[in-house]
């Protein structure tokens, strides 16, 4: 008797194992597809807001007068301005077009320095080349002009100019192939624009950080309300940031349209350095 108690068939051993595995697979799939809370964000561009307004720097540096125009127009138009403030802006753009703009703006002196930058596109190396006396003179001239222009323009525009100059520098790197840099250049542009619009509330201290999600149209305008995903902890500061974003709409477009994403996460450190 005991024999058949032991020998009895075990029904559905493998079947059960397969069914159990299938059960868990189902459960896993269900979890995977139903529990993605915030997976759909394409990219987060970090933007830092700095408490000191950058207006001071604008006059000192030599960004070309036409620069403000640059921001609004496509890249080719931007090229003419860069020549005066040596190679940096030039390098930001593609090399072939360079010769054309240079003759237009500053006929004789420019051609000589320009060829040098081409072979070695990196900004660091160019600076030494640019420094020689002829450039200095040009620089001074440019500075004078700049001052006049700067006086004429509003301070916000100066900030923009500054930002675009920086963005151009970074875009330089992007031209070398890194699309990421293009994205960060765009981030800098956005940062500069918002930076110029923020009005800091009194009494804010520390180095709080805020994370704000915004949705963009392709033309750069902000759709709907920006959403505060992580507060700074100071409601007044949060409001200031949100207001600055709304006020900054439309935000600048990226130089490289492929960088554009609809949903951005902006990180603000409005009081940071």
């Amino acid at each position, binding site marked *: 008797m005991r024999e058949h*108690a032991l020998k*009895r068939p075990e029904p559905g051993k493998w*079947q*059960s194992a397969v*069914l*159990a595995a299938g059960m868990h697979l189902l459960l896993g799939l269900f979890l995977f597809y139903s529990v993605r809370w915030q997976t759909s964000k394409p*990219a987060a561009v970090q933007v830092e807001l700095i408490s000191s307004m950058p207006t001071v720097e604008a006059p000192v540096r030599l960004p070309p007068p036409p620069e403000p125009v640059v921001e609004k127009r496509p890249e080719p138009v931007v090229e003419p301005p860069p020549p005066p403030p040596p190679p940096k802006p030039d390098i930001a753009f593609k090399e072939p077009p360079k010769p054309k703009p240079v003759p237009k703006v500053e006929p004789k002196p420019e051609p000589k320095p320009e060829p040098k930058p081409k072979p070695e596109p990196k900004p660091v190396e160019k600076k030494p080349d640019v420094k020689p006396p002829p450039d200095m003179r040009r620089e001074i001239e440019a500075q004078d002009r700049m001052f006049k222009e700067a006086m004429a323009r509003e301070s916000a525009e100066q900030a923009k100019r500054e930002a675009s100059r920086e963005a151009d520098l970074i875009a330089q790197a992007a031209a070398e192939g890194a699309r990421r840099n293009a994205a960060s250049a765009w981030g800098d542009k956005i940062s500069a624009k918002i930076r110029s619009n923020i009005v800091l509330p009194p009494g804010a201290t520390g180095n709080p950080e805020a*994370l704000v999600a915004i949705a963009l149209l392709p033309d750069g305008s902000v759709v709907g309300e920006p959403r505060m*995903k992580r507060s700074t902890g100071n409601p007044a500061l949060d409001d200031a940031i949100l207001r600055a974003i709304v006020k900054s709409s439309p935000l600048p477009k990226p130089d490289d349209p492929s960088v554009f994403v609809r949903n951005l996460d902006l990180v603000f450190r409005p009081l940071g350095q």
Partner: protein
Amino acid sequence: MNLSEDLSIISLIMNASLLVKLVMALLIGISFMSWYWIFRKSFAIRGARSRTDKFELEFWSGGDLNALFQSAANDRHNAGGMERIFEAGYREFIKLRGRQNIDTATAVDGARRAMRATYQREVDELESHLAFLASTGSVSPYIGLFGTVWGIMNAFRGLSNVGQATLAQVAPGIAEALVATAIGLFAAIPAVVAYNRFAHDIDRISIRWESFMEEFSNILQRQGPGKAQ
């Protein structure tokens, strides 16, 4: 550049601390085993019930006991619980009845004891591994809770370095930790439901077997004196 947290279930599991991961792995293992036994037991119980139905029908349709006994003895491996009980009882009865100095009452008693032994063996077989389901149901939520408590402790410990504590800084850690509890519950709930269901089903089947034993004893008792001499 990537301050946005990705809260998909995969990243939640991947970001958990080692201990929490171990807890999750353990729970997934337990959950797998409990589902395995849920399926096996449900097959076994369904099989036992359908065989009992079939045998009861055969038995009460008034067939010859000897023929039934032959077919049960020849087809041992496919026999259901009730069939085995019948076979054990009848075999013992025949053996005892063949002896000279044994009366019917004693033979029926012997048959009854044999049936009881087989009955217990069969019920034990059906009930095996139910205890596993029961302990899965009661213990795995605690295991999951342990993982969660540990994960939340870590989340708060990480917070001590931050000047300003916001909900957003703790939330991912807590979400991570809670996954452990979720897995524990996923393992426990089906196990508890299945345990209760199976225990009830097995009770009903064993009651049927028991009443069959009584009825069959009566039949043996009735038939005994006639055939014994």
